[in-house]
């Protein structure tokens, strides 16, 4: 085990984005591969913060500074990943549905998924269904993650899923939904594969979806 992994993990847990870059470079120079650094340092570090968040021992500020530290390390590692490794634990396309411009929760989910080793492609907000469809065709993601804050925009999730089905793309993709307007029963009703109440749970659900 590379001796710098623990230092990188500590940077993430402590939200230290200023020294994590140095430790990341040290690990690479020591012979660790980018994928191994992600697997053995970044992911465990983010998981640790995620577990504390689930126990209400850490809160959004701690989660965010950990994500910032993680991103600082990923910035160094991402260009060095092989094409195969860049997909990580899975590729996720994420976006807020049509009619909704809220993005805070979606952004946090995206960062947490990156910290968990997923490759995340963020389509932004107010995303029309056909843009989700074309993204699926172009990027072949493992997971499509849909976010909605407004009760009035949540039905767009069903529209997107229906269009994915009629486009013949449903079999190859898992669909994860979330947002203040969404519940687990709503997720079931629109035909999603998974639902997450927060960003930490989104990681857990995403992992189980790709392992199915």
């Amino acid at each position, binding site marked *: 085990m590379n001796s710098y992994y623990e230092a990188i993990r500590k940077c993430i847990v402590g*939200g230290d984005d200023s020294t994590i870059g140095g430790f990341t470079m040290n690990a690479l120079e020591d012979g660790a591969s980018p994928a191994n650094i992600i697997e053995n340092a970044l992911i465990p570090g983010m998981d640790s913060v995620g577990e504390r968040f689930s126990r*209400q021992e*850490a*809160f*959004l*500020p*701690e989660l*965010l*500074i950990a994500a*910032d530290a993680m991103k600082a390390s990923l910035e160094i590692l991402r260009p060095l990943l092989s094409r195969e490794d860049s997909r990580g634990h899975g590729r996720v396309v994420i976006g807020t549905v*049509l*009619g*909704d*411009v*809220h*993005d*805070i929760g979606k*952004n*946090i989910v995206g960062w947490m998924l990156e910290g968990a080793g997923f490759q995340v492609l963020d389509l932004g907000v*107010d995303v029309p269904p056909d843009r989700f469809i074309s993204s699926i065709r172009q990027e072949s993601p493992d997971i499509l993650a849909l976010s909605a804050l*407004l*009760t*009035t*925009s*949540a039905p767009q999730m069903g529209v997107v899923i229906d269009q994915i089905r009629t486009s013949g793309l449903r079999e190859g993709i898992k669909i994860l939904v979330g947002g*203040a*307007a969404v*519940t687990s029963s709503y997720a079931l009703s629109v035909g999603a594969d998974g639902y997450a*109440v*927060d960003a930490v749970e989104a990681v857990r659900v995403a992992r189980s979806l790709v392992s199915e």
Partner: protein
Amino acid sequence: MTLTSYEVVRRAIEFGTPDRIPLRFAEFGFDDTHSVAPNQILPFEHQDQHENIDEWGCLWVRSRLDNMGQVKGHPLAEWNALDRYRWPDPDNPALYEGMDGKLAGAENKYVLTEVIFTLFERLHMLHGYLETLQDLLLERERIEMVTERILEYDMRVIDNLSHKLPNAIHGICFTDDWGTQQGPMINPELWRSFFKPLYRRLFDQVHGIGWHVWLHSCGKINALLEDFVELGLDVGNFEQPRTLGIEEIGNRFRGRLCFAGPCDIQQTLPQKDEQQIFDEAKLLINCWGTPQGGFIGQDKDLEESYGATVKKRFAMLNAFQKHDRWRI
């Protein structure tokens, strides 16, 4: 003798045994309160507006759907903008123009004013929500400086209101959403060290004038509620009672805090039928109200924004009236 609307509300808040549950359903003609707000620039002034800049320089954006939108342009997104930022003027006459006229119709009613986006909300609207959460840990001094300026502004506005409308106002409503679906947005200990002293100053000023303090806060703020009660919060406006836990909150705070709110706006009003709305209204009254007061039935307008209907809001009003066990 029938109590005036003012007396009904006052007694509900102060547990002085009103003769019925007060109501705030203005659009249906049942409102024991009268609002006189300063002329703060609202996120959107009319339905066709999708972008707007408020008096703090925050850019509001929303989609085609009618909703409150989100601040997308933050004047203090970068700390180097602080030196050249023009703070809004709490003495700006435009804020108070026409306030006397707003009292028309207030006779015998409980008069409520407001300073919306009070502390934390204004802070993250200025600096950015995610940036503010991080900088509470990383840039504490700068965050303290900005929050102090916001508090000074609020307190000056309150002072001005009390002088411009002497003896006319009975309460003030603040808004600061503090909860996610599962808990407070920040560590309660951090909240107590940073924000609680600020709220204390604000609440003490309001009580010193003789007004009640109302607070609107969304999300699961259970971990902060005891602190708010300790600070002297008089009325809590919580619109997601199912997220808080109706029975839990009732067990802890019934008889100690007055609640003013609707049935749950995330689950009940958008998704349930009229019978279920009736049932929840009854549960709220039973769990949160007492024979001495402590509950105010309050509407939630802009039903399209949260997926309800006018019919369901009316059903909620009927339910609050029907289940008023203490109506004399």
